[in-house]
């Protein structure tokens, strides 16, 4: 796709929910084919904006904007599916466009924390309904009939008594001059035609014929390609470089030093710019560089876990939560357990390596790329280049996976720095090795759990965590505890286990960290839920029955009923190991049961996983199923296949040959059940991940009697 193919449309912005202003915008389609068609189309209908999410052209074509990044989790489908419900349009009749980064217009666009639906569905329902009411009011005025005699259906307003109808395109101009209604009546759940249905994703066809435009696929006329050689030791500096040989490589145009922002520090690198990605890579190989590694700790993985373990023995840490007096009860208890769980560093390793396109021009700086957090990128770039917001334009493409890594600003910053230097549009491409060796990573965290049982009851629980704090990298005071250490733990336990404490022991290394799918719950869940299983055994109880005593609320009880029913928990056969875990994060609770057995070759096989998710109000059950299936596979990889390790300040893994990904033969059968209720919407993209590892290790314990407290472990070696 080139810029000349992009449909340039004048958007007349009329009175909507966000005010009145003439608005001229450029939006690129998600689909290369559509871009070509749009560019070739000489006669275009006028697109009119009813509100930031809803544009309708005078031919009646409805465009719904998706304000969040699409990285597989389905926002491109579910945001329009919500708006279309109240707008009364069929999903297959609309265009879907990515919104540009615009906090004023769209509010929070940071696609993280499983927040897209739970954070915006109530507003999106109102926006759809409000646009519909404006169209109905416009029709009623044209017919001079009461609006109450009109209704909307499938992109038309119909006058009930006379059966006269207008399509939305015939009404949009008049509707756009009306004020948005202050109050709108929203449908009840049984009235939904789209919401709650497993409608096929509108982006699927684009992803089966190669036409979906990911960041790496976006091209501009005159665009150059850049790769960057960065210090292989995290945070080291550049002493000197010799570009003579690199500049002799055919296609290489320019070589220069850049300093890219990584949180509040900078990473030194040497950029090689060429006329193709390959030439830039060849130029990079010819660079001669001397790095300055002085003043930086050359950390190794063994040291990290040794130090964490020492801290857990000697320090009490900063209190995150304390109720009652767990220490006294632990001291006096006859039945108690004191164990350490260890979790590894992980790379996000999205299939689309990091990349970004920037074009630094005198009057504006425009960015295109796989970006999870457009307004954070905008904030950061504005600060770095001292530009006002209106001069920094952020365009989102499809993301080939994100998992938290693409909610970071370093790779867009690199693209901007390089484009400023070359004066041309530039795409910076990270190789797989760059992506894997540079971080930021999910931090590896160690947990010490102590618990006491008296008369079969879990009377005292004490948890301490030692691990790096993402928020320290972002400037949070180091005297504050990392409150995220309680993420994943179910709130009802605070009521039922009266004597309890959770503390965070500050731990620093030079390794940059950032959120990774399900964030702290991804590691916390392993500790909390493994310990819950261990305490059940100490109390001599079945792990599911044990939990029922401490999770007394109706929602949790129903979830456990479903887990028991689907998995046949109480009817396991000889030679089958069953394990379970339940975690909560981003307002969604997920329980999983894992079944394992030992095959004739002696190896452990994961035969089936049952997942029950309670996410309250939901949009598309098939997307939820897909997200849970994927979360389980990602958790399986992190528990049994791969970890990031360090030696002498260097990351030891470089590519998929030594950061081993689960493949199709590793995928267990997964059955997902979504609970139906009228509670507020919870997150979907992440909460399916944390319960898997503790449920798996419990199933292995059930089968073999062997307790696994350190991740990752090799299934073949159990």
């Amino acid at each position, binding site marked *: 796709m080139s810029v000349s193919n992009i449909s340039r449309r004048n958007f007349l912005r009329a009175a909507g929910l966000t005010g009145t202003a003439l608005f001229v915008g450029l939006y690129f389609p998600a689909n290369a084919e559509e871009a070509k068609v749009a560019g070739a189309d000489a006669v275009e209908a006028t697109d009119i904006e009813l509100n930031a999410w809803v544009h309708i052209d005078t031919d009646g074509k409805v465009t719904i904007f998706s304000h969040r990044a699409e990285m*597989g989790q389905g926002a491109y489908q579910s945001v329009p599916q919500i708006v279309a419900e109240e707008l009364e349009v069929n999903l297959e009749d609309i265009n879907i466009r990515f919104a540009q980064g615009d906090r004023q217009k769209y509010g929070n666009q940071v696609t993280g924390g499983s927040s897209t639906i739970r954070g915006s569905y109530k507003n999106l329902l109102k926006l759809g309904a409000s646009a519909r009411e404006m169209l109905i009011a416009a029709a009623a005025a044209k017919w001079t009939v009461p609006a109450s005699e009109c209704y909307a259906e499938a992109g038309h307003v119909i006058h009930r008594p006379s059966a006269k109808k207008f399509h939305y395109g015939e009404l949009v101009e008049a509707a756009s001059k009306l004020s948005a209604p202050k109050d709108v009546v929203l449908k009840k759940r049984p009235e939904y035609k789209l919401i709650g249905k497993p409608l096929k994703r509108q*982006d699927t066809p684009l992803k089966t014929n190669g*036409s979906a435009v990911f960041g790496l696929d976006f091209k501009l006329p005159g665009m150059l390609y850049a790769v960057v050689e960065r210090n292989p030791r995290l945070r080291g500096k550049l002493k000197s470089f010799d570009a003579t040989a690199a500049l002799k490589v*055919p296609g290489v145009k320019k070589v220069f030093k850049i300093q890219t922002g990584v949180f509040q520090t900078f990473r030194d690198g040497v950029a090689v710019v060429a006329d193709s990605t*390959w030439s830039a890579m060849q130029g990079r190989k010819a660079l001669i560089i001397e790095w300055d590694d002085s003043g930086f700790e050359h950390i190794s993985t063994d040291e990290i876990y040794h130090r964490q373990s020492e801290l857990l023995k000697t320090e009490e840490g900063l209190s995150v939560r304390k109720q009652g007096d767990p220490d006294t009860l632990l001291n006096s208890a006859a039945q108690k357990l004191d164990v350490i769980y260890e979790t590894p560093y992980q790379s996000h390793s999205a*299939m689309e390596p990091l990349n970004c396109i920037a074009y630094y021009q005198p009057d504006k700086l425009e960015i295109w790329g796989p970006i999870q957090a457009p307004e954070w990128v905008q904030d950061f770039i504005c600060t770095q280049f001292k530009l006002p917001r209106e001069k920094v334009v952020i365009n989102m493409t499809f993301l080939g996976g994100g998992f938290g890594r693409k909610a970071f600003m370093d790779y867009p910053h690199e693209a901007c720095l390089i484009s400023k230097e070359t004066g041309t549009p530039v795409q910076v491409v990270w190789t797989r090795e760059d992506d894997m060796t540079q971080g930021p990573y999910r931090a590896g965290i160690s947990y010490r759990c102590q618990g006491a049982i008296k008369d079969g009851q879990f009377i005292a629980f004490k948890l301490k965590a030692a691990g790096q704090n993402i928020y320290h990298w972002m400037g949070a005071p180091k005297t504050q505890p990392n409150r995220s250490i309680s993420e994943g733990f179910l709130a009802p336990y605070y009521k039922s286990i009266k004597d309890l404490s959770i503390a965070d022991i500050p731990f620093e290394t030079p390794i940059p960290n950032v959120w990774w799918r399900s964030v702290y719950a991804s590691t916390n869940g392993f500790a909390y839920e493994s310990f819950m299983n261990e305490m059940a055994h100490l109390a001599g109880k079945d792990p599911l029955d044990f939990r029922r005593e401490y999770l007394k609320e109706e929602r949790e009880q129903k979830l456990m009923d479903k887990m028991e029913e689907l998995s046949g928990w109480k009817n396991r056969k000889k030679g089958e190991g069953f394990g379970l875990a339940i975690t909560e994060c981003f307002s969604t609770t997920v329980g999983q049961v894992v079944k394992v057995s030992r095959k004739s070759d002696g190896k452990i096989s994961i035969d089936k996983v049952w997942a029950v998710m309670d996410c309250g109000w939901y949009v598309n059950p098939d997307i939820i199923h897909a997200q849970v299936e994927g979360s389980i596979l*990602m958790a399986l990889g992190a528990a049994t296949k791969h970890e990031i390790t360090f030696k002498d300040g260097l990351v030891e893994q470089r590519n*998929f040959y030594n950061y081993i990904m689960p493949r199709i033969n590793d995928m267990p059968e997964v059955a997902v059940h979504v609970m139906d209720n009228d509670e507020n919407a919870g997150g979907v993209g992440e909460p399916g991940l944390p319960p898997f590892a503790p449920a798996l290790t419990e199933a292995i314990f059930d089968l073999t009697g062997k307790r696994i407290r350190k991740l990752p472990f090799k299934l073949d070696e159990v």
Partner: protein
Amino acid sequence: MTNITVNGKQHQIDADPNMPLLWVIRDIIGLTGTKYGCGVAQCGACVVHLNGEAVRSCVTKLSRVQAQQVVTIEGLSANNDHPVQLAWNEEQVPQCGYCHSGQIMSAAVLLRENPNPNDADIDAGMAGNICRCGTYQRIRKAIHSAAEMQRKGGASK
């Protein structure tokens, strides 16, 4: 100058003969459906058909494809209607979608060679393609469904 045919169209490529076919297809010819994932033949995101066989374009040098036939995801069918593509849509396989050009190109060859694969055949045939989103369960289901479409004489190619 290297002559290659991509999706039935001839191209004369003036580039380093060592340049991997992946970058020739993406940066020079401008077909971006074929993806870069690892560069070392580990992930399968770059799979294309070379004279009908599935190859990793990230490790296939331009010089090796002189005067040969390359088919990319864009050329697999005219209307997104190869049985594998139809099945991928039916079973709603992709999430982020980045790896699926390669998955589909691998699956198309698997089904041509083995029209009735069982789960073990599918696992063996598709183990070269990584999906970080974890769509494997749906890939298996979609391949069975595509096989059935082929047997029923659907839009087989």
